[in-house]
């Protein structure tokens, strides 16, 4: 496996699970439920009729959507493109990381059949105004279930939603390297995902009125460029830009637009960046010195 996550810091958020605050953590490409020592055992118990829990449901949803191209077109394009639904207090029905949500018969005020499940929760309830996302598994369509999961994942706090975008982008980058790896129906989604984030980055990098931009998605073996011609910004970048540059938060650096980032070793990247004058790209070397020294990536690779 290509260690695409190198350079990305861990991300963590709180999920209210079984009446307690539990931690979900992403680190080095893996999502884990820190308060559940045996997720497989809990899944087996749930399959036998035991109670499911939001932490495990979240892990399962992540697994199901880690190559879902819809994540790329639905998720935020950047800091200026915030999802309204990411305000936890405003969308308690999504069922995750909501301080008001508790489980258990004491607080139960169930409302069935509203269409959105909440990660397949058996009995998520809400103690204040609003309604829960409760729906028994199997009571809603697969499409509605998938959409409900997507919404919950995309509105996770702690930077987890951006890690999901990075995960999905890395999956599709790998497929694009294979002949016929990306079916024709997905390519427009990938192109839109890349263009939207490039456009958003350029707009905020250059500021001022909207700039007319023409964009072309190129292969990884082609040269990325950003030039101005006849008053039009012409960008050509590979889909890999999303993984190597945007997901790592280095789309702009030192006032420059980053065209590419190539890993030299576990802690060193060589960037190719262009200034606002859109002159010749300049190389930048970026070194990440972690407190514990270089990490051994071979175990994960």
């Amino acid at each position, binding site marked *: 496996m290509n260690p695409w996550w190198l350079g990305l810091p861990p991300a963590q958020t709180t999920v209210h699970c079984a009446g307690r605050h539990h931690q979900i953590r992403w680190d080095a490409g893996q999502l884990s439920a820190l308060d559940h020592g045996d997720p497989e055992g809990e899944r087996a118990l749930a399959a036998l009729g035991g109670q499911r829990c939001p932490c495990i449901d979240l892990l399962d949803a992540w697994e199901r959507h880690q190559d879902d191209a*819809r994540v790329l*077109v*639905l998720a935020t*394009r950047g800091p*200026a*493109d*915030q*999802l*309204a*639904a990411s305000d936890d207090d*405003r*969308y308690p029905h999504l069922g995750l990381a909501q301080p008001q949500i508790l489980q258990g018969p004491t607080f139960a005020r169930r409302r069935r059949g*509203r*269409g*959105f499940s909440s990660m397949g929760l058996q009995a998520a309830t809400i103690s204040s105004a609003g309604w829960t996302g409760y729906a028994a598994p199997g009571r809603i369509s697969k*499409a*509605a279930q998938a*959409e409900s999961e*997507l*919404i919950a994942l*995309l*509105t996770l706090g702690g930077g987890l939603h951006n890690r999901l975008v990075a995960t999905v982008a890395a999956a599709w980058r790998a497929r694009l390297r294979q002949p016929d790896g990306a079916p024709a*129906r997905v390519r*427009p*989604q990938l192109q839109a995902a890349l263009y*939207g984030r490039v*456009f*958003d980055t350029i*707009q905020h990098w250059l500021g001022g009125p*909207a700039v007319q931009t023409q964009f072309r998605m190129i292969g990884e073996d082609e040269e990325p460029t950003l030039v101005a011609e006849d008053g039009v910004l012409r960008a050509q970048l590979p889909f890999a830009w999303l993984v190597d540059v945007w997901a790592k938060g280095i789309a702009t650096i030192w006032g420059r637009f980053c065209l590419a980032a190539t890993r030299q070793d576990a802690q060193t990247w060589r960037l190719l960046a262009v200034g606002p004058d859109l002159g010749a790209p300049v190389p930048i070397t970026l070194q990440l010195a972690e407190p514990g020294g270089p990490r051994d990536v071979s175990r994960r690779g």
Partner: protein
Amino acid sequence: MLLAREHRRGLRDAPLVEPASALVAVDAISATNAETVIDDYALAEALRTEHGLESRRSFGPATRRRKRKIKPLEPRRVVPCDHVIGHGQGTLEIRRVSLAEHFTRIAVTWRPNTPQYRSRRRGGMISIGLNGGAAGPPHPTVVDDQGTRSGTEFSGGGSELESEGRLTTDRPLARNTAWIEIDGTRVELAAQPAEWSVSIDELPEQPAAHAYLWRRLAIRNYFHELESLDPAIEALLAAGALEPDDPVIDEVRAVLEAMPRRPGMPYGRRAQRQVPQPWRSLLSRQGREDGPEGTIALAAVTPVFDGFSVAVGSVESRPDGFQIEADVTSGTEDLESFGWGVRPRQLAWWAADDRDNHYLGHIQSWNGGEDHSSCDIHFWPPLHPRASTLRIMPTGEKSRAVITVPLAWDEERSASEETSP
């Protein structure tokens, strides 16, 4: 588009629909893929809009269209009347009675005795679904010759001086009844509907992009303004379905500029270039108010064409236009009467007279059911005063029905007779 927040519209008004439907029309993209893209966009919008997810949940994501077998409509019995009933608060003119298997509708005009204030112009819409009240139309009880008794509901609109609409019974009356009594006043149903004939014509072949643009211009409604065809044109150019120098591009733009922004609104400026028929005829007479006045009742039904069957119950002409009362299969799911879908299943309502004048109709009011929808179609410009035959042409993508009706106005009708209960 997601990032251009100032351009955001309602969830049901996605700006992708116009270019997507153009691309689907020329087979550049499948309807399923187009609907998927639009649905993704709608969800992305909902995620970025306050209460957007709640709205999406209320409306639900896009649903796939089901194919259904279309059966021809059963003809209704339509009886022209000219009966005025005195009422304590005004007069109720009975214009015609439509008796169908599942409903009975009575076309009426209500004129209250003492309007409280005057409307600025005749015909201004003031109300829908009036149900009695001090100045509103009555909702009389109706009885047929077999003893079926039913209450009625009024729906329609008008001014303080006059309201036009229909009384719909709570239950259908006998289709073969010889008379009805309205609050005790008997109305004989002896008159016969007008003669009519129907044929089905295949539409001439033309490039798919041209057909789409002309059809898009023809199918308009009161609820969505068609501001521009440019998103569709740009999509068709990008797909190679149109050439940049295609003269049709300028022609459709000229027609759009000259047409009212939406039905019922003022006309646009005169077309700056010659446009082809039937648009030339349409635009040359727009704005006139010389149409004849009268109503023709008929019970015309078409066979199935292009997946539709149409029944026309009446033609009612006024100086500023004319209107037909129609039923259309299939039902609400496929009609998309209030919007423009990726693969719209809608009819263009054309008409022509024996003097080579053309008319275009738009849905003015509509109610839908599982199997069929009932609608009033308003046509413009007004009928030519010397036209003697009208061809009503509900037009699909491949073919159209032609319902031919002789225009014999009030001469065949008896003089009005006012009675009191």
